[in-house]
């Protein structure tokens, strides 16, 4: 009979491991507790001892592979029982590198196995119940039943797959034997302690480890029943018995494997810092968690939060530039550091697309020049940017998705009913974006005056925080310097930005001839999560047309 040996539970939260070495080969006779493979988990390197005795028939994994808990590792041709018992003593020699197995115990176990076997001749049908799944888990949904009546199963073999609020897990059999009846079907809710399977155990299926457990398993339910009866007969006679009865530890967390190895003081600090101690990687022996580990974890969390834009990509180490020539190292200014973080975030979290277009501002330029003196008298300057403020505000009304923000976590789009537009200002201290509020409610003269004032404040670092907040959209004009187009970065959490380059006279073919027209190149970068390309093209076209025929603002905006 060929039997599969599966990777047993390795400890809480360990679901898989890397195979380092395979310690047996086909044809080898393997004893119970003999190391079969050597694996590496994130916690330790361990040898996996066989739970079976037999001759290796097939090896199902290779070193270097990842194995999952419950995955078949090797198949055994089962050896006869007498041979198994004879070789028990030899185990000690065959297992030199074994980590912590207590050899004497194993030998004794096997002896008992033998005796039990002799004593028992008849087979028994035993209930396999849903074992404890973890603290506070009382029931679970059955996803899959992995065995059927007639199956021969081994101890630790998965019998059902269940889903709790925490995880999907395979429940390993506590017994070996033949499945007589499957009580649950997929879709059922199973309670802890409820019978899952009826398993026929006995001589036919002996020879495995679980054998010595059998009497205990058979007894357990009987004992429970007895206690129950007594409890029913004599009510309110709890106390004493409860006090010492294991398993009835309301409230008392039983120490178990998988609990983070950390001193109480460390656990408390972690709790105060809001850190789940179980997530902290301990640097001490066997992963013991020190105070420093908790602090390092918190620091890493914070760093991750700050460098979120890099999406987990760590900065590559910089070379020593001084090797190549003279360097001068200066600390980043605050503005520079913030800009760097903010733009990195915007760049990596927003899928950017940039749409380019040109507006014919030949006529607009005439109007601008003729009205400028009046505006100048009021203390402003009628610039293309000032006009663009008004145009964009109108465009935002026509295309409301450009005046929004995206909350991907909540899957929500926030539409704004106000029209505040930021203007990127180049100052000697760095890039600053003051915001002109309620652009839709102000005329061009007012806007020009305000823009002048606010830009000046930004340059002399007198700007208030209030004046830097609340923008819906940003305009960045590099036309004063030059260029034909560029791809601005959306000023998150806004969803679009309009880049303005230098206008120039270009030959435009109109009315059957080339005419010199003053063309203004515009570049609209937008957040593709919320804005489609066609909308962006329409939006930018609308802006261009409004610049060409400002009446459009009054009619549509």
């Amino acid at each position, binding site marked *: 009979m060929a039997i599969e040996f599966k990777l047993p539970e390795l400890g809480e939260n360990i679901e898989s491991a890397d195979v380092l070495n395979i310690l047996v080969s086909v044809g080898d006779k393997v004893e119970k507790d003999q190391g079969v493979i050597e694996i590496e988990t994130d*916690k330790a390197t361990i040898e996996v001892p066989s739970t079976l005795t037999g001759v290796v028939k097939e090896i199902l994994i290779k070193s270097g592979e990842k194995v999952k808990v419950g995955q078949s590792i090797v198949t055994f041709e089962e050896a006869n029982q007498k041979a198994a018992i004879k070789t028990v003593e030899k185990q000690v020699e065959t297992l030199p590198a074994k980590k*912590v197995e207590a050899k004497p115990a194993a030998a004794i176990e096997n002896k008992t196995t033998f005796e039990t076997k002799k004593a028992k001749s008849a087979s028994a049908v035993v209930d396999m119940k849903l074992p404890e799944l973890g603290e506070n888990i009382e029931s679970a949904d059955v996803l899959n039943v992995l065995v059927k009546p007639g199956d021969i199963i081994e101890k630790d073999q998965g019998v059902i797959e269940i889903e709790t609020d925490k995880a999907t897990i395979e429940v390993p059999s506590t017994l070996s034997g033949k499945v007589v009846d499957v009580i649950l079907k997929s879709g059922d809710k199973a309670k802890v302690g409820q019978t899952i399977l009826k398993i026929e155990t006995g001589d036919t299926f002996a020879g495995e480890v679980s054998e010595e457990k059998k009497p205990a398993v058979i007894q357990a339910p009987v004992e429970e029943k007895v206690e129950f009866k007594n409890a029913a007969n004599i009510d309110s*006679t709890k106390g004493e018995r409860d006090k010492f009865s294991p398993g009835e*530890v309301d409230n008392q967390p039983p120490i178990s*494997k998988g609990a983070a190895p950390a001193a109480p003081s460390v656990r408390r600090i972690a709790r105060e810092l809001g850190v789940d101690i179980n997530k902290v990687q301990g640097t001490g022996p066997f*992963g*013991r968690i020190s105070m420093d580990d908790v602090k390092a974890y918190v620091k890493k969390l914070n760093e991750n939060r700050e460098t979120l834009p890099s999406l987990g990509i760590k900065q590559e180490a910089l070379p020593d530039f001084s090797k190549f020539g003279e360097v001068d190292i200066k600390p980043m200014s605050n503005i520079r550091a913030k800009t760097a973080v903010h733009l990195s975030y915007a760049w990596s979290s927003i899928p950017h697309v940039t749409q380019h277009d040109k507006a014919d501002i030949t006529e607009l330029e005439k109007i601008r020049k003729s009205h400028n003196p009046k505006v100048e008298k009021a203390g402003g300057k009628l610039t293309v940017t000032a006009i663009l403020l008004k145009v964009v505000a109108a465009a935002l009304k026509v295309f409301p998705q450009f005046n929004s923000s995206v909350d991907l976590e909540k899957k929500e789009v926030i539409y704004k009913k106000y029209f505040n537009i930021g203007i990127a200002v180049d100052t000697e201290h760095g890039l600053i974006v003051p915001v002109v509020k309620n652009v839709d409610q102000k005329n061009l003269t007012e806007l020009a005056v305000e823009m002048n004032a606010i830009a000046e404040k930004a340059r002399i670092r007198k700007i208030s925080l209030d004046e830097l907040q609340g923008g819906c959209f940003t305009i960045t004009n590099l036309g004063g310097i030059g260029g034909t187009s560029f791809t601005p970065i959306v000023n998150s959490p806004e969803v679009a930005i309009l880049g303005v380059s230098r206008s120039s006279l270009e030959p435009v073919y109109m009315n059957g001839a080339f005419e010199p027209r003053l063309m203004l190149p515009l570049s609209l970068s937008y957040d593709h999560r919320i804005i489609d390309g066609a909308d962006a093209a329409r939006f930018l076209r609308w802006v261009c047309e409004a610049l060409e025929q400002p009446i459009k603002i009054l009619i549509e905006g």
Partner: protein
Amino acid sequence: MNKKIVVIGAGPGGYAAAFLAADLGMEVTLIDKEKNPGGVCLYRGCIPSKALLHVAKLISEAEEAKNWGIEFPKPNIDLNKLREFKNNVVGKLTGGLGIISKQRKVNYISGTARFMNSETIKVDKTDGSSAEIKFDKVIIATGSVIATIPSLNINSKRVLNSTTALDLPEIPKSLLVIGGGYIGLELGSVYNSLGTKVSVVEMTPGLLPGADRDLVSFLAKRIEKKFDKVMLSSKVLELREVQNGIGVKIQSADGNISEHVYDYVLMSIGRKPETKGLGLENTRVKVNERGWIVVNEQLKTSDPNIYAIGDIAGEPMLAHKASHEARVAVEAIAGHKVAFEPKAIPAVVFTDPEIAWAGLTENQAKEKNIKYEVVKFPWAASGRALTLDRSDGVTKLIIDPIDQRILGVGICGPGAGELIAEGVLAIEMGANVTDLKLTIHPHPTLSETIMESAELFFGQSSHIYKPNR
């Protein structure tokens, strides 16, 4: 912070809570029936029983001294003086707590409390007056009461419980202890050493149900030698008063029913929570089907203003659990992010030999299918144990086979209750076997058995030859 805190019940949970709350600057009222803080533990439990057990040990050691060439005459027991010694201990401790309570400006009220609603309690004081108290938070620490079997409740002075047994009415000629748990065995040992013929009847197949059998076996052997009779898997069917004694009908393991007459009977089947009379129905506090108040990991009940600690808040019903919970509850009230999250709560049975354990027991490990390894160091290999002529002990470690972490410690032997603290610390610190092995323990002491158990795990104990591989 000037929160108004009321603590109901002044046992080791309640007074610890009240004192810490006062230390943190809260305005504290502590209510208890007794004149001073102390609760069952100090007045009628841990403390008086330990005073008597100390005497019991002295008597049995004096007896055993004849094996070492020292023979004492049979002791002359002055019961009044013994009672006075015990009462003095209790008086000193509870009186001291009363003074400390005043020093901390805790408003101590002698009386009983009842909830009117989630903000008010009514106190009926022992002086006959009553008062209503408004509070921000209440901590319920009313403890537990002696469990009884109604069918065996016969009103007789000769049927003792743990409270009346501590009063030492007289030295009975014979005593039947009903319940082989720690209370019965401790008090049974006291009377046994005073000269009483003691028998024990226990419903389950072993003494101290729940404790690992290998720890209990030394105690069981000694008790079987010293006691008159130990009846396991046996049940008391009936008690009735007869002339100069109590007639007891016992059904033994084989189903046979027999009747015996004992001078006295001690009912010690345990303790149970009792919430009747607290007026919890006027609050949102929930009580589970077994009588315990349901609390979260901060000891908060389902009523946000009300916390519960100690025996009333669930098992294990132990004083040291209560006082630890007290600190967590008060710190939670003070706004700290804390939780009741011990890795081990030690349990000690103060018999001779003592039995103590902490963390995972082998019984639990088997039941929960937790993989473990166990090493046992027999005290016969301990020099210190031999100098005491007490080789009837064992120290064992329950170890995680993968990371070699200490999951549980069990000790049987004289002084086990003191020794277990190291095990608790090891478990709390997440220590592994190597840590215990590499910690120098003083020689010659019983504490070395912990270190040697760890050495034994690696097959390297100096005093036991048992190579591993």
